[in-house]
């Protein structure tokens, strides 16, 4: 890859922005499905970071790409279990409002 083409910092900045947007959505969403979407956005930001490092810093033994594959696997499992928990919560509470899930509050 021609290193002079796109600097590594450009990829890192895009991934930082994506991660921070995900955190903002996680903190501010009231819909539980949107919270799950924000988590996926954050995981994608992390993946871009890993891929950029594996291509610019470790371009012979691309271990970052292997890590990205594992992150994608875990994200798929997390999405399946998270949405199942969400369905179960919706069945018990008949709402998806995050403010009403206060079972652990004492």
């Amino acid at each position, binding site marked *: 890859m021609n290193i002079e083409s796109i600097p590594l910092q450009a990829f890192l900045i895009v991934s930082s922005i994506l991660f921070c947007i995900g955190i903002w959505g996680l903190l501010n969403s009231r819909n539980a499905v949107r919270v799950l979407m924000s988590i996926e956005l954050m995981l*994608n930001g992390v993946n871009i970071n890993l891929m950029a490092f594996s291509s610019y810093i470790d371009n012979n033994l691309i271990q970052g790409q292997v890590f990205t594959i594992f992150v994608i696997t875990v994200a798929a499992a997390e999405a399946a279990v998270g949405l199942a928990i969400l369905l179960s919560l919706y069945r018990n509470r008949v709402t998806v409002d995050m403010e009403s899930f206060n079972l652990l509050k004492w």
Partner: protein
Amino acid sequence: MSIAVTTQIICFSVLSLVIVVGALGVILLESIVYSAFLLGGVFMSVAGLYLLLNASFVAAAQVLVYVGAVNVLIIFAIMLVNKKEDLKPIGNLKSRRIISTSICITLLSLLIRVDLSNVWGLSDPNTSIGEESTIRIGEHLFSDYLLPFEVASVLLLMAMIGAIVLARRDVRNEDISTGLPVDQELIEKSSEPLLIKKN
């Protein structure tokens, strides 16, 4: 990647713009359905960035797993829990927004400062394996990452069984009033909603 530098920069700019604007749309749009479809667009653009980084296998995995599985799952979940409800207004919403936004902006400025100020030890471009990355990933997965690879398969099995157990409904196999067996349609047991009285 064997395309011209200018083309790469144009592709990178367009993809980054789509990613940032799409992600903002995902968290800011009022309708959750629009958010879900925009999320699919963000995933596709991230796959495009992976192609720019010479990682065709990971790009294909991203499209298959994220767009094909996770996004479809999210759309199904929206379909199942899609109820128009008026959210209860909560107090001190404004101060919450201010605090969370300032936390995010602080974190973003910190990350960008680290990105720009650190001196990254870039490796020699001549050692790059370029477009043979798929072969190298296969070698990794069957030699030094063999144990995590097998554990990932167990994890996926556990996640599948867990999701089925969590999302399953209890079904009666006989009619409540007549006692006859029901085989045509599923009648749900009328369970006491345990948690509703809490607030």
